[in-house]
């Protein structure tokens, strides 16, 4: 961690500690949280002792590694089908069994991580960039520009993520044989387009909250430029809720990608994705005869989503002393 980051965290720390003093009713206890230690180290200590944090961190590292280097986990070719072995139940030869076209379910579960992780991370990056910029502008501008930008955000947030995804991907359909990155890029684009106002709202309200506080007024009076204000006063105060929401939403984006693929408008075969695998496994016939086709990709997908939600939860609990 750079010095800059650590000093920023200290600012959050002090601020939250002050918050808790005004709200609390046990003077003796507050005493401790102000003078005991800073929130950054406090949060880290809290995180370190939270087993859920470690579980989620390890899972995320695991799935990200899986997405980057699937070869590390399996030597089976996920694109090799042996129709003769279709729907074979799990065995030492094929741990998760074979699917209805004779693909190895284990290998395809490993290779399926890539789509989920790419969509999740990609969409989060864009949502964060757009949301942060719009939120800061809107919060700082106030007046008509703020009103216009806020309404603009409301227009996008008024379209539910999944419905919007269905709409746009029906109009600009993915076709079998389209390049993998194009399809993933399209899904990332759709999610980013519809989800950014969430981050914008958080940023906007924390800018508005911070703007009238005395230290920002003081900084302004001393001639600080808006950019400097954002960097040293606004970001440190708002970054915590943004991180928490972004992490939890990352899990949701992964679920959206899988759902779109499940509905047949996301990734297209021959691409490999958990959503596609579950879709193929979910016909009544498959569920009855080869439930292993359904269960393993489902578990992988759910664990990935879970790990991001857990991480977001753990970070929030660590940062929010009021909930302790």
């Amino acid at each position, binding site marked *: 961690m750079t010095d800059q980051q650590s000093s920023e965290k200290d600012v959050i720390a002090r601020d939250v500690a002050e918050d808790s003093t005004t709200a609390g009713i046990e003077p003796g206890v507050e005493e401790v949280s102000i003078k005991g230690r800073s929130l950054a180290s406090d949060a880290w200590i809290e995180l370190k002792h939270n087993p859920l944090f470690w579980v989620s961190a390890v899972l995320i590292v695991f799935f990200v590694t899986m997405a980057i280097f699937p070869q590390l986990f399996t030597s089976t070719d996920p694109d090799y089908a042996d129709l003769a072995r279709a729907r074979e139940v799990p065995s030492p030869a094929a741990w998760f069994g074979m699917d209805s076209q004779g693909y190895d379910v284990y290998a395809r579960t490993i290779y399926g991580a890539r789509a989920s992780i790419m969509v999740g991370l990609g969409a989060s990056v864009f949502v964060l960039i757009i949301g942060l910029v719009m939120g800061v502008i809107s919060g700082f501008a106030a007046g008509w520009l703020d009103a216009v930008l806020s309404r603009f955000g409301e227009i996008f947030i008024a379209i539910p993520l999944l*419905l919007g995804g269905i709409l746009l991907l029906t109009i600009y359909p993915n076709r079998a044989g389209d390049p993998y990155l194009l399809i993933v890029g399209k899904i990332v684009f759709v999610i980013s387009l519809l989800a950014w106002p969430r981050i914008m709202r958080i940023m906007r309200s924390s800018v508005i909250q911070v703007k009238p506080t005395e230290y920002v007024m003081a900084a302004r009076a001393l001639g600080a430029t808006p950019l400097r204000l954002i960097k040293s006063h606004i970001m440190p105060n708002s970054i915590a809720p943004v991180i928490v929401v972004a992490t939890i939403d990352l899990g949701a984006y992964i679920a959206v990608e899988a759902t779109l693929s499940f509905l047949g408008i996301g990734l297209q075969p021959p691409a490999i994705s958990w959503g596609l695998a579950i879709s193929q496994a979910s016909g009544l016939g498959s569920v009855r005869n080869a439930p292993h086709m359904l269960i393993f990709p489902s578990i992988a997908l759910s664990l990935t989503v879970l790990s991001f939600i857990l991480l977001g939860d753990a970070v929030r609990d660590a940062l929010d002393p009021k909930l302790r």
Partner: protein
Amino acid sequence: MGQYAIRRILQMIPVVLGTTFIIYASVFALGDPTVGRCGERACPPAYIAAFNAEYNLDKPLLVQYALYLGKLMHGDLGTSFYGNSVATELANRFPTTIKLAAIAVFFEAVIGIAAGIVAGVRKGRFIDSLVMVSTLVVISIPVFVIGTLAQLVFGIKLGWFPVTATQGTLWQLLMPGFVLAALSLAYVARLTRTSLVENLRADYVRTAKAKGLSRNRVIAVHTWRNSLIAVVTFIGLDIGGLMGGAVVTERIFNINGVGSYIFRSINQKDATAVVGAITVLVLIYLAVNLLVDLLYGVLDPRISHD
């Protein structure tokens, strides 16, 4: 309150216009509205010309949009691939979907709020951890996985519930409704717990204790209403999520509602039908949001009594 309501309704107008415009523009101006109309092949020029004339695509964008809006207000959503009126098709299917959604909202509100209160009141105890962990698990499993697994376990293996819900009777819709509700139910439980815990720490709760009220009254009267505000808002906003979930749930359980209509239209590459259905859903979503805003004003006097 009246002023507040009027203000909210006025604020809603640009959002409705903006949303429908975006949908319209992305479909008719930027996209290719004849997608899939002629099978896998591109449409012949004569068909495209006729199509353009029918949908006024030969006119300037804003005029097109105004005409489209006019049609929309008359309930004209265009004709589907098979030549049926999309509006009629939707009208036939809405009762089933509304029934499904109502069951879902019922489960979501009743079980979700109850679980949240139990957890919040016994914060830090076993039952609290149980609620928190189980809701977390539910949240992390996408609805189509829950649906297929529920179908496998409760429908096929245990045989407790019908596997599909083709007729859309109440009994058939019970399990699909629960599946549809699962995610939101988990969120409602967690949200109820959080706001209850937060409100229990509020200064006015301390006052209520100092007034000599019983713990039950403090929770039931003095924190309930305050906690409800957040929960009601969430349930309202979540209708959008339920709509997306309905597409999935109806597909899994073979329910003949709006969701499966959308799904079928996706597969038939019938853009007019998909766009029409989604436009209606988005408009309903906006209307529900408005209602929630108004209800919010009723529940929280600070909002409406300025």
